[in-house]
């Protein structure tokens, strides 16, 4: 046993101890014919568009795990600060953790400066972190917010490159959504037009991409006001059956009827709310 492998104190952060073991396990497992468990991804359509006094972020709500829908109603628009929100595509855990870390860092930063945080700060923090991990953190983000210089919209790729644009789309359904944007985007739109455009772009992603589906979430950010509309539109409702296959009362003749009362007493009653956040 390596006695002095604990000579120095352990550091926090990522630990690469099991990487070799995992590589060996993967080869063994594929020899037998099974597959390693796949990470839950948000094969996604996320979009953002800047309009006259602010910006609109939009996202679908399906999370996939390989070929299976893991979550029919997940929330892809994450809070970063009161005036900045971020949509995330890619590995679900990576986007969740990344946005939470950046949100905490921005809060500390804004407490230290005493000012409302700027979108460029969040962008810089995200970009530096993603580049540090060389794309192994699979988080593709659409970052948007309103600060003292107006509305800003950035798209951030997993390897750390960013683009500042008036309209962006990311995720597996990004091509379908971008087609809608390229056709109908105009500068200085009104809020209702922008919301309708984003809703149509996400709907294009939902109907034309297998990785996107369920509902459409919107987030409208203007000066001093944030509208988080979840769900804004339920594009995929579960179908309603057209006919009822139950038999009418009286179809079968009743011969005898006995009623037995069961004495039950309520011992304890608890209410547990479902986590639909």
């Amino acid at each position: 046993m390596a006695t002095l492998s604990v000579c120095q104190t352990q550091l926090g952060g990522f630990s690469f101890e099991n990487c070799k073991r995992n590589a060996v396990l993967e080869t063994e497992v594929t020899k037998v014919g099974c597959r390693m468990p796949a990470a839950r991804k948000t094969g996604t359509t996320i979009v953002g568009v800047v309009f006259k006094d602010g910006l609109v972020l939009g996202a679908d709500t399906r999370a996939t795990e390989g070929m299976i829908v893991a979550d029919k109603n997940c929330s892809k628009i994450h809070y970063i600060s009161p005036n900045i929100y971020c949509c995330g595509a890619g590995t679900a855990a990576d986007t969740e953790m990344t946005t939470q870390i950046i949100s905490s860092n921005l809060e500390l930063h804004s407490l230290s400066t005493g000012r409302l945080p700027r979108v460029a700060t969040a962008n810089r923090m995200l970009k530096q972190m993603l580049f540090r991990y060389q794309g192994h953190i699979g988080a593709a983000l659409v970052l948007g917010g309103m600060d003292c210089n107006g509305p800003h919209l950035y798209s951030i790729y997993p390897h750390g490159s960013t683009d500042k644009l008036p309209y962006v789309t990311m995720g597996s359904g990004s091509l379908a959504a971008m087609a809608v944007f390229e056709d109908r985007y105009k500068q200085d739109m009104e809020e209702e037009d922008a919301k309708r455009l984003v809703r149509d772009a996400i709907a294009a992603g939902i109907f034309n991409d297998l990785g996107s589906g369920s509902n459409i979430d919107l987030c409208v950010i203007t000066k001093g006001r944030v509208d988080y509309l979840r769900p804004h539109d339920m594009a995929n409702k579960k179908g309603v059956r057209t006919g009822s296959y139950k038999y009418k009362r009286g179809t079968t003749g009743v011969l005898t009827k006995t009623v037995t009362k069961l004495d039950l007493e309520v011992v304890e009653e608890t209410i547990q709310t479902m986590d639909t956040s």
Partner: protein
Amino acid sequence: MNTRGLRSQLKDSVPVTGMGPQVGAYGVQDTLRSGFSSVKNELLPSHVLELSEKNFQLNQDKMNFSTLRNIQGLHAPLKLQMEYRAARQIQRLPFLQSSHLALDTLKGNDESISFEDILNDPAQSEMMGEPHIMVEYKLGMM
């Protein structure tokens, strides 16, 4: 992080530290300290990020100090390094958890959160080092 001032620091090849046989006092593998040796374990990192993450803080400090030297002169990094060295001395014995409060405040880590604070918290690790050996290692007696 000032990346524009770093262009003058770009080198063609950067020596990579961290991997390689652990040599002891006499130039041979120190089995007592670092266990049995295996070429496969030591020559290649097990993950692409392993080396860069191990040296990340050191490289950041090096970059920042050399930029600071170029902007403000040699005194600036010297003073900072002296303060870091002083703060590093006011800690508990090596096998106990110290808070690194002074060092964190000097480096600015008290205003940021990263994976070092969330994952693999050393305060929660299941193993504690052997006290005598760790103190002897720190004092250089071993």
